[in-house]
């Protein structure tokens, strides 16, 4: 009796300090991402702005993946496909505006590119989701991977758009007022998008929809027993997640101005997944932390040695073996509940 009454406030206080700590980390993260690249760029370190832009764009994709992976327990291994689709939604209309042909979609208009990117990724997610979500566990991992690979081969065989060699985007998406040709503007757009998307994902995970997804993750049969058909909720989340990654692809296409099927390769999907898991799938900002660590590590290691994949792979293996819930778990001491897959 006494133990329960004394334990409860203590527990609550633990949670409170933990929430404060997480809030502090989040605020710090936002502040760093807002100030550091800008300062570096203005002091002449333009290269670092490139690194940070790529990092923020991939963080958007990782947050998108985490919506189904962390929240819904759906381990999709094919999310690079959406990035590729989003990027080609910029590249193909731009290509036709420059070289003619396909008048219906030939435009530099950014709103058209954006709408195309989001629609195509939503459709691809819907069609593949309808089939993939009928499977569970390891079949789901593999079927999402196979669908992404299917898209990869489809793009490779499109000789018009460069096939294997890829496609150069000569003109970036055009918007009124702002110009994506300015690196700082592009970074600002990506950064603000990241903040908005993290906020949206936060709202989604605490909504009834998000709770249903979490319920489906922990016990789908029980959800069915209380009268919830998880399938349509999972499908909706799958589509949302695909759309977010398609948006990241739209930004990435505008950032790199060179797109190729290689960006949809299954190893790319693996990298986004690594970002999510490395950072911690249970923590809202986990994927962002994961993307930061991943990109910075990739850059630093590749500066040191051309064989940087070796230490990188070893780090990955060690982090799986010894760091069970990602880097964010270091911040969440008392939290034992993990965002495990199925």
């Amino acid at each position: 009796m006494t133990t329960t009454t004394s334990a409860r406030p203590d527990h609550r206080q633990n949670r409170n300090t933990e929430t404060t700590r997480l809030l502090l980390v989040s605020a710090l993260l936002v502040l760093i991402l807002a100030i550091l690249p800008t300062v570096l760029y203005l002091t002449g370190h333009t290269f670092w702005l490139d690194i940070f832009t790529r990092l923020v764009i991939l963080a958007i994709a990782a947050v998108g993946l985490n919506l189904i992976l962390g929240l819904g327990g759906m381990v999709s291994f094919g999310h690079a496909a959406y990035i590729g689709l989003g990027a080609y939604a910029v590249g193909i209309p731009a290509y036709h505006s420059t070289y003619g042909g396909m008048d219906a979609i030939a435009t530099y208009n950014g709103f058209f590119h954006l709408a195309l990117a989001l629609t195509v990724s939503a459709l691809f997610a819907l069609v593949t989701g309808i089939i993939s979500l009928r499977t569970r566990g390891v079949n789901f991992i593999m079927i999402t991977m196979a669908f992404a690979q299917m898209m990869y081969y489809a793009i490779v065989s499109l000789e018009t758009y460069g096939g294997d060699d890829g496609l150069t985007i000569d003109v970036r998406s055009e918007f009124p007022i702002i110009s994506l040709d300015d690196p700082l503007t592009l970074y600002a757009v990506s950064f603000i998008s990241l903040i908005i998307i993290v906020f949206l994902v936060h709202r989604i995970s605490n909504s009834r929809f998000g709770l249903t997804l979490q319920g489906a993750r922990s016990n789908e049969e029980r959800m069915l027993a209380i009268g919830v058909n998880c399938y349509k909720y999972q499908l909706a989340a799958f589509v949302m997640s695909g759309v977010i990654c398609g948006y990241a692809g739209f930004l990435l296409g505008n950032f790199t101005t060179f797109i190729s099927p290689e960006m949809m390769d299954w190893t790319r999907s693996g990298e986004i997944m690594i970002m999510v898991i490395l950072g911690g799938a249970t923590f809202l900002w986990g994927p962002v932390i994961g993307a930061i660590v991943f990109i910075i590590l990739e850059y630093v290691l590749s500066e040191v040695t051309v064989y940087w994949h070796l230490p990188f792979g070893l780090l990955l293996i060690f982090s799986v073996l010894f760091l069970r819930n990602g880097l964010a778990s270091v911040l969440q001491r008392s939290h034992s509940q993990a965002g495990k897959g199925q």
Partner: protein
Amino acid sequence: MEFSLLLIQLLNGLQLGILLFLLSAGLTLTFGIMDFVNLAHGALYMLGAFFCASLTLYTGSFILAILLALPLTALAGYLLEKLVVQHLYDRNHLDHVLATFGLILCIDTIVHIIWGPQGIAIPLPAWLSGQVELFDGVVLPSYRLLIIGVGLLAAAGLYVLVNHTRLGMLIRAGASNRKMVGALGVDITALFSGVFALGAALAGLAGMLIAPITEASIGMGSDIIITTFVVIIIGGIGSMKGAFLAALLVGLIDTFGRSFLDDFFKLLMSTEAAETAAPAVSAMLIYILMAIILAFRPQGLFPPLSR
């Protein structure tokens, strides 16, 4: 003429199917018994090819090289299992995927360091690089026939091993209830290591057989592993019979799609449209097949009954 082309493509399809079976057998065994998802299985296929390439150049005999490379690949698999994989059995599939992804990065880089970035071609002995005339006008490269022969032999050996030996009985028992097998006094750890090494050797054999046709190159494993996954998903994960039939199905459909789809499309649409659409569709054909099969049977064609 038309008939001989058909026959040649049939044998090409069979050859691809046999190679896919050698790869998927190991994958499906590891998954069926240990519930372990191994993305690095393709890396063992690549290792087999590189071992064989080096040994062929060193010993001067392709056959001898295969005989030496087989235990070497098995040893590599065994070490991999002992060092990393063994510690992951009680984790979830996501951890398996991430750790074996890390393994791919490591193995690819190590191969890059040892053998360099270029691929290595394997010269075939004269008696294998010729052609065989089956009957009038139908000429086939003898090496492709050898691949089919060796692959079928390996499949038969595997069938006997799994269904008619004590070890096979333990493997099947482990697949249906590994805790019970452990409780009955079987050294489950050793069984797991052995099965993993066996799967590695089979994947390595596939790599050794294909290397003289393509060449041993970095990335050859990453390319084929996805197709292998498609095979074991279609066949039903954990089922040896499913893996065999699905491998042949995928091999044949992929080969026939690539060689005959444009002719077929020309019946339906203009020549120009057919020539644009056919390569794209034929590259996607096996995935479309997988999607259709899974839409009706989410557990694959021959799911193992005990799981």
